[in-house]
């Protein structure tokens, strides 16, 4: 499996632009799972630009949330986005100099990006349900379930404290609007999780068999 993937990648990135091997076309049809690719597409949609500037903007914007393995990561991600026809080279740029080629999003890129954003909301809900089912599996051992809830609550409290409070200045590498939206999203989602922990703890305790000697 890994060998196959490596072969497809080798073919995709070693083939000259425009040659378009069968493997590369097959890869383009498969869903794009890379969060970095989608995040980069978001930046191109926000403002068309060239690779180096996009790499700098990526680091500023996704500071601590997403990381590039290296600057060359941007080139491979841009190649993928181009193959999938989600971005295109802007006319009139210096096509002979790779680092100065400027890219803009295609209509397809904008539409697929919007679709992906909506899909992430459902993905988040799916992951949360999986987590809750795992906690449910611990319910036969209430002490363990309570300990897991306590640990989850601690992590949430840590996240809440780290969240920039409303009305504070924006953090590094983000615009004021994005910073405010992130702040409010964090506060509201973590607040909901903390409320849920209290509910879940009460439910687990209610299902626990009474301890010997207790009334």
């Amino acid at each position: 499996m890994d060998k196959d993937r490596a072969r497809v990648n080798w073919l995709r990135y070693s083939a000259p632009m425009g040659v378009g091997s069968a493997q590369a076309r097959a890869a383009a049809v498969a869903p794009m799972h890379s969060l970095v690719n989608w995040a980069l597409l978001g930046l191109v949609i926000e403002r068309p630009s060239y690779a180096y500037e996009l790499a700098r903007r990526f680091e500023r914007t996704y500071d601590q949330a997403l990381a590039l393995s290296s600057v060359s990561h941007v080139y491979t991600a841009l190649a993928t986005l181009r193959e999938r026809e989600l971005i295109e080279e802007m006319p009139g740029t210096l096509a002979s100099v790779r680092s100065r080629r400027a890219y803009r999003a295609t209509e397809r890129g904008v539409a697929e990006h919007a679709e992906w954003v909506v899909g992430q909301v459902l993905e988040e809900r799916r992951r949360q349900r999986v987590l809750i089912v795992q906690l449910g599996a611990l319910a036969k051992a209430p002490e363990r379930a309570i300990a897991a809830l306590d640990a989850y609550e601690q992590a949430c409290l840590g996240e809440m404290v780290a969240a920039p409070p409303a009305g504070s200045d924006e953090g590094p590498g983000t615009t004021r609007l994005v910073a405010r939206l992130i702040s409010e999203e964090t506060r509201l989602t973590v607040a909901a999780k903390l409320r849920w922990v209290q509910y879940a703890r009460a439910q687990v305790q209610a299902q626990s068999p009474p301890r010997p000697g207790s009334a």
Partner: protein
Amino acid sequence: MSLLALEHVSKHYREGQRERTALTDVDLEVRAGELVVVYGLRRSGRTTLLRIAAGIETPDAGSVRFAGEELARARRAVLGEGIGYVRKALRASEEDGVLEQVVAPLLARGVSVEHARKAAWAALERAGAERCAAVAVGELSAGESVRVALARALVLSPALLVADEPAAAVGLSERDGILAQLREFTRDGTAVLSSTAEPSEMAGAHRALTLGEGRLRGPSTPQLAPVVALRRSV
């Protein structure tokens, strides 16, 4: 050294034939310059915890020390000056002026009127309520009322400010300003211990804890405060 230290604090109330546990074996330390926020649902023991921390109530078991001294012994001397307590609602006659309200704690301690007025203005400014000085208490908005209550507690320059649900009755826009104000107080070393029934109001605190079934959960001492966030949303 901790400014405030609660150790193994428990508190029970009798409600008719029943006994209700408000706090069970609670440990909590607060240091100078810290903002510590406790979240709990209704009847979780939030107010009891804060009243015990302020020395207004005594625990059934355990100890409460303020600046190294047992609070039960030094209660009268500490409350007001060492510890400022901010109630949920400002207790005042509707006709009372704001400035009268804020100077009152100083006048009660024999401070001259001139000095008391100067200190009251400084406290109102610190709480962001200087515009309310000439207003009657009955005319204050919910947010202004909280700021005046904070100024009334601050006028005695306490080392620890204990605020019970300071943002409970205020609108969303005023809420953010009040929470920012609490953080601002800690810049000069004042410690703030506050409670909330709304978990999102814990954002920006130095430490956040939860209270449920009388048990306090979370980093009860500054050393145990988590420093790494679980995840940051994109």
